[in-house]
């Protein structure tokens, strides 16, 4: 995920504004707005139900790339994809490929999976989806590379509009993601690329599962 200074996490004001779960009414309104924008949406009560919903969408044997996502890890979707044996998971396959000799194959595999499963940083009540990425590698498949996109989105990520969504990314998500990147990879993160999906023109290509529970950040 523009480089900012190393940080001690989001400010108290940012946490107060962006960490709280949206009301059921707001979540339902966002789901309806997503539908109007061509994004298939489903509202579930819990992470467990979201996990079941992902299972019900992914065909057995499908080639699946799971984006790095706290949400997917927390609810067991990452494990389902990588270890259940039900799918062809791309991440373990990519991880063990030869970076020198197979760079081209890696790029091609990662950019156009049959299914990509990930999350988002904000969903607006008008039905727009915002995703930020440091390298940008997550965004190409979401825009058009992947055959199908499944996004699992915690209910605390509902915001009023795109402007607020952008503030959520800079003021709340980035400090947390930066901490995670420094811990996990030893490098800072950055809000280098931001994708805003206002409308999906291919019917049923993008599915959003909104969870009435705080998941990820």
């Amino acid at each position, binding site marked *: 995920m523009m480089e900012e200074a190393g940080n001690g996490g989001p400010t108290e004001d940012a946490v107060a504004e962006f960490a709280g779960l949206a009301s059921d009414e707001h979540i339902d309104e966002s789901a309806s707005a997503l539908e109007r924008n061509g994004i298939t949406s489903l509202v579930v009560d819990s992470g467990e139900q979201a996990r079941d919903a992902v299972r019900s969408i992914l065909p057995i044997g499908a080639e699946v790339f799971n984006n790095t996502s706290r949400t997917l890890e927390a609810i067991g979707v*990452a494990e389902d994809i*990588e270890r259940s044996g039900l799918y062809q998971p791309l991440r373990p*396959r990519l991880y063990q490929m030869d970076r*020198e000799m*197979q760079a081209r*194959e890696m790029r091609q*595999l990662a950019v156009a999976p049959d299914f990509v499963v990930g999350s988002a940083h904000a969903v607006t009540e008008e039905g727009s989806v915002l995703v930020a990425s440091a390298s940008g590698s997550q965004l190409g498949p979401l825009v058009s590379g992947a055959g199908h996109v499944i996004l699992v989105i915690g209910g605390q990520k509902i915001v009023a509009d795109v402007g607020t969504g952008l503030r959520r990314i800079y003021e709340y998500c980035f400090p947390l993601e930066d901490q995670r990147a420094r811990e996990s990879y030893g490098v800072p993160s950055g809000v280098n690329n931001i994708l805003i999906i206002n409308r999906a023109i291919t019917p049923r290509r993008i599915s959003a599962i909104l969870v009435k529970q705080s998941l990820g950040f």
Partner: protein
Amino acid sequence: MFDYDARPVTPQVVLVGRRASSLGYELRDFLSRNGVPYDWVEIDDADRVRQLFDGDDIDPDRLPICVLPDGRRLAGATVQQVANGLGMIAAPLLPEYDITIVGAGPAGLAAAVYAASEGLRTVAIEAVAPGGQAGTTSMIENYLGFPQGISGSELATRATAQARRFGAELLLARPLVDLLREDDGYVARLSDGTEVRTRSVLAASGVDWRRLDVAGLDELLGAGVYYGAGPSEAVSCRGCRVAVVGGGNSAGQAVVRFSRYASRVTLLVRGSTLGASMSQYLVSKVSELDNVEVRTGTEVVGLEADTRLRAVVLSSRDEAGLTRLPLESLFVCIGGVPRTRGLATANLATDDAGFILTGADVTASRGALDKWPLARAPLPLETNCPGFFAAGDVRSGSIKRCSAAIGEGSMAVALVHRRLAELGAE
């Protein structure tokens, strides 16, 4: 870093041991070739070891230790134990198969895809990993349909997924122990006692690397000496001096791969030219690499080592005396001896080098058809045992190329249909 460079988010296999050990190499090679991501931790890395084992004592005499994703620890871990622990060991699902394929290299995988796609009950037995020798090659650039080339591992991964999609079963990580005639079919027995009943067999077990006859070499396996050039060792060769022995395409592909990582790669070729056994595109590629030296007419005659390989001693036809080449790793990629372990019990006729005779070669071989029970002659890829076929590198007279093996594996399925029809099944 790109998102797809990040490690899988689920727990990984962790191996703890000494890199310079044959057991450690065997496990790394097995996991790498089966596409299982793993972390390697040197036993001397006290911080990592303490963190991993939470301060528990570990027995340095029982290495390597494998920590499975569920936290279980296997001390002195073997390939079979690790495969078991990872749930890679599956029992056959059917009481009988139409075709059992021994070996899941290019020939075996091609046969599995075609047989299963045509509705035959299909199982393939593979002792190590799908892909065979081709699965370890860095880039096959002359395989039809892939203008930019395709790595052997990627070809194997795709073929395996394709075979499974059509319903073929793969029994992994257990070698074949014996294969005996039973009624009109055969029974294959694996090292763990698993039995597979089948109406026809296709031997597609390929070749093993030919051993390099140099004193002390076997003691250094995994400690600087390696047969083949599997992907597991390439990264660890970064900045090192490496030599590859061999003049074939496998040696050429190994040189290209290591040239990306190693500071210096020396290709040692016994023959007087590279072009004799290596495809021209590889000869050109190897010749263009700045950090690669090709020494023709050269053989390894000695090794220098302490706890691991330090140098090789070379004899050259063009130079008097011996020369010393300091290096960290030696990769032996010479020739191939047929992998017929477990198949021998079927009493297959072979040529002098042990490759399996088929078709007209069986008919022409004195005594090979003494126990042949049928009025017809063996079919083109059929051995001296009815319904028992051979394809790919293990077959006498085969062209030792990936695409040729794939062609033979596919062709064998058509012949299996004829055999099954003869048995009254089709």
